[in-house]
């Protein structure tokens, strides 16, 4: 493909380096000359946003760690110290706490984007599974981070989530004691969660490298869901994708800043400003918003083992998506029926999130059951069958054809044809 490894070091120093560690040419071929489909829309900027947010979490996290004390008697106090005494501590903590929420917002959009445009299909299965692994690691990291301030919600979230493992037959209780390092959630638990909360983001960074590697082997998918055939179908990563990504990262930061500066506690729970009390469960416990759909699935099933199994399966099933979807056509643009089921899926996921925040009684339970049913049916009934029954629309012959008419872009300006138009 065009532009691959065309890097020629110019200065003497770069030539010297190139012979010893060809890092400049690696960066050049991956992020400068790298050909990206010319029809990418803004939904493709979320990968960049996610990398940016990981950086934000690591920088603010490392700084918070300089002021935080992982001990049951001091953790809450040290977080209050960060809020009141540490210079700009309030800002750093609000950036970190809201940054986690923004990180999840971005990952959900990124995942739905992949589902809409069929980005998980051949040859991007490994790329997709690496994404699911990153998502799981993010969930573990976010959960353990939420425990660190040692407020009421921290403590009881830690209790409920670790107890999920007690549903495992025979060895469940042994595993839970092992996770706690005691007979209840306590100081050993807080200590190990802190250690792992510090570690996992760097593991995520490692898997992100694999994810991007797999992406650069398979190439990016695009809104048309067809592979680039000629140079006309692609544009070089720099400046086109770089500018687009940077622009949207900046827009995303406006939203982020709005949360941080205007409603920094909106997404949190007031009870987490009460120090942890192992003798008193709060009147209602709800997880952070980004776990709510799964919490609703757990609660919709009135049996412990089945509920926990459903919770874990609802996440793990994502990894099997490439094989559950039997349609050869990738993009929902050319799949009229799939598109409707997809949007129903989005609505049911958001609906489950809403229901997860409501008390588990009456109509809320019934609705949770219906939506849980659809959530699973989407994966194990709708997607496998749709591939056989759906009549898809004809695909364009090339990416260029899908966005250009006789060399002139449809709608907004496309780069190279600007001069011609």
């Amino acid at each position, binding site marked *: 493909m065009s532009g691959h490894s065309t890097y020629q070091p110019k200065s003497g120093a770069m030539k010297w380096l190139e012979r010893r560690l060809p890092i400049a040419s690696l960066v050049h071929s991956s992020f400068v000359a790298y050909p990206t489909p010319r029809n990418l829309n803004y939904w493709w900027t979320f990968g960049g946003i996610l990398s940016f947010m990981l950086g934000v979490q690591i920088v603010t996290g490392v700084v918070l760690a300089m002021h935080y004390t992982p001990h049951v008697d001091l953790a809450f106090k040290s977080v209050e110290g960060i809020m009141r005494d540490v210079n700009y501590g309030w800002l750093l903590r609000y950036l970190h706490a809201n940054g986690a929420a923004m990180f999840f917002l971005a990952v959900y959009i990124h995942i739905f984007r992949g589902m809409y445009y069929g980005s998980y299909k051949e040859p991007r299965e490994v790329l997709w599974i690496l994404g699911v692994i990153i998502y799981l690691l993010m969930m573990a990291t976010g959960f353990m981070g939420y425990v660190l301030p040692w407020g009421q919600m921290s403590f009881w979230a830690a209790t409920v989530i670790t107890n999920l493992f007690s549903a495992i037959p025979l060895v469940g209780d042994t595993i839970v004691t092992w*996770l706690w390092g*005691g*007979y*209840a959630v306590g100081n*050993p638990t807080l200590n190990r969660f802190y250690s792992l909360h510090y570690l996992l983001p760097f593991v995520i960074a490692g898997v992100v490298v694999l994810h991007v590697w797999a992406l650069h082997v398979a190439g990016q998918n695009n809104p048309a869901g067809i592979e680039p055939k000629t140079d006309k179908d692609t544009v070089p990563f720099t400046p086109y994708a770089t500018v687009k990504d940077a622009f949207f990262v900046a827009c995303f930061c406006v939203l982020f800043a709005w949360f941080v500066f205007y409603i920094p506690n909106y997404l949190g729970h007031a009870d987490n400003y009460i120090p942890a009390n192992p003798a008193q469960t709060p009147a209602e416990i709800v997880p952070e918003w980004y776990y709510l759909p799964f919490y609703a699935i757990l*609660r919709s*099933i009135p049996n*412990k083992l089945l509920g926990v199994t459903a919770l874990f399966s609802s996440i793990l099933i994502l990894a099997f998506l490439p094989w559950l979807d039997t349609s050869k056509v990738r993009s929902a643009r050319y799949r009229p029926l799939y598109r409707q089921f997809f949007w129903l899926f989005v609505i049911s996921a958001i609906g489950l999130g809403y229901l997860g925040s409501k008390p588990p009684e009456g109509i809320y339970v019934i609705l949770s059951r219906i939506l849980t049913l659809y959530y699973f049916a989407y994966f194990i009934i709708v997607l496998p069958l749709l591939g056989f029954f759906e009549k898809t629309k004809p695909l364009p012959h090339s990416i260029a054809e899908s966005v250009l008419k006789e060399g002139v872009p449809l709608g907004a300006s496309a780069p190279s044809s600007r001069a011609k138009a």
Partner: protein
Amino acid sequence: MTTVSSADHTRRDFLYVATGAVGAVGAAAVLVPLISQMNPDASTIAAGAPIQVDLSPIADGQIIKVFWRSKPVFIFHRTKHDIELAQKVDVNSLPDPVPDSERVQKGHEQWLVVIGICTHLGCIPLPHQGEFDGWFCPCHGSQYDSAGRIRKGPAPKNLYLPPYKFVSDTKIQIG
């Protein structure tokens, strides 16, 4: 030629297998401390010593909460009415069928001692709430009766009984 290379092979094969075997045993041996360090340490276990509780100040119908091994333990001084309700239910209709007589100690039917941790996901149920004269768990709505048995909701088991014995008529030792 062939003989030489095959002789080479057998010696190298032996080294491979021997090194691999020693390596595997070594890796497995290293896993033991790495996993075991996460279990409760000596001081945590030592802190789990038995405790004694004086029952005399607990009024009729009152439920108190004490801590043993950092777990809450409910001590319920049951009234006649509570006991009757607990004995009356059809045991076979219960999700975790156990008669009231196995939930308390003989001759001390007015004292129910249970671990105050919901068997669903570990919240502390609220005393004197719910439909069954016992506890209600605020987390996902499990309900326990006046014998601490699960009656409704997602919890699979009755509230667990801690090991305890009566040292006198008004004093118990838990643990």
